[in-house]
């Protein structure tokens, strides 16, 4: 009898693992579609994050400091101070959300870079002078100008920044400045300063799979530029669950109610 139960449970676990792997593949993990024709310079479509590239090499940290890379971050003393002060409900330094200071806890915008590591779909729309990103999470949009303009020398801060893009071979290179640094780089509270500059390198490896690496240049918070592990995004077909963007908005009045009635009591905090 027990043997039968053990066999049944083993079968169940194996079946679950198989189903989970299929489900994950469908939701974003890279799968080769090299033989399907596509224009490598056209990023049009709805894309869903499939996670990091799992890079890191010999120096990879057992416990990453950020969702962007498994490499240790070259934080300056000032950067470390800010990182320590950022209290997220997620990641290796997580605290109960009511005791944290995640900007999202009050329904503030996630900001650009955090959005790119979050698992919600976004859509690229091509026009003659810019690429537009429609972002489901928090219902934002972003313009990447491709008309030859330069990024502003002294930008005013924007939650989604000032971005320009150009093609280098089959890689779409996007430079961004002026990101409002009240946002975080990821879900774990990784900071950036008001001097930070960013370069995204997008590469459509085949019809269905898109890769991104991000380089952060921020001498105030990081002693040298650092580059993320490769992140992957998978094309969502029309009619699939994530194939069309939906409205996901952070409404402060709803967030306050949620915090008071559920978030805070769940974490044992009365306020």
């Amino acid at each position: 009898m027990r043997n039968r139960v053990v066999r049944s449970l083993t079968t169940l676990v194996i079946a679950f693992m198989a189903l989970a792997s299929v489900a994950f593949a469908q939701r974003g993990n890279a799968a080769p579609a090299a033989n399907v024709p596509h224009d490598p310079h056209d990023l049009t479509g709805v894309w869903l994050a499939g996670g990091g590239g799992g890079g890191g090499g010999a120096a990879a940290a057992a416990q990453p400091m950020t969702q962007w890379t498994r490499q240790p971050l070259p934080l300056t003393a000032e950067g470390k101070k800010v990182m320590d002060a950022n209290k997220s409900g997620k990641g290796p330094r997580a605290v109960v959300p009511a005791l944290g200071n995640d900007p999202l806890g009050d329904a503030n915008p996630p900001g650009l870079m955090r959005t790119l590591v979050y698992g919600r779909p976004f859509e690229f729309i091509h026009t003659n002078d810019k690429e537009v990103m429609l972002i489901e999470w928090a219902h934002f949009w972003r313009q990447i100008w491709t008309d030859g303009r330069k990024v502003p020398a002294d930008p005013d801060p924007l939650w989604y920044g000032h971005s320009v893009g150009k093609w280098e071979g089959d890689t779409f290179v996007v430079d961004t400045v002026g990101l409002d640094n009240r946002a975080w780089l990821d879900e774990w509270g990784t900071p950036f300063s008001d001097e930070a500059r960013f370069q995204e390198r997008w590469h459509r490896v085949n019809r269905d799979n898109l890769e991104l690496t991000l380089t952060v240049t921020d001498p105030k918070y990081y002693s040298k530029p650092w580059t993320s592990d490769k992140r992957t995004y998978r094309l969502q077909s029309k009619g699939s669950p994530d194939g069309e963007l939906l409205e996901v908005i952070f409404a402060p009045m709803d967030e306050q109610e949620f915090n008071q009635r559920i978030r805070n009591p769940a974490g044992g905090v009365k306020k």
Partner: protein
Amino acid sequence: MKSRVLVVLFSTLVLMSSLPLFAHHGTGISYDQDTHITVKGTVTEFAWKNPHSQLYLDYKDEKGEIVHYAVELNSPGVMTRQGWNRRIFKAGDEVVMDVHPSRVGAPVGECLNPCKVSINGKELK
């Protein structure tokens, strides 16, 4: 030995089934992600709101006193993709659902997709 295998297999299954649930708005740490409890109650309110929908239930505890229980649900977008809508729960519905309970024992639980729910005896898919 066999019972240990059973415990390990069951724990693995529970742990694996809970992994996607952390992918929410940072509240996952407030709930015991290794445990499911079954809550049975009568719906008093359903808030279909972004980015956290909420369900409120009443039930009587073993002393006969009414417990007001709150359940954190997913965002309308995620639930829409699952086929749910704002009318899926209504006041007076008898609901049975598996939730991750609050770590501090508060009458609050988390039911993010996928989680097992039945309404008036009918299980949701």
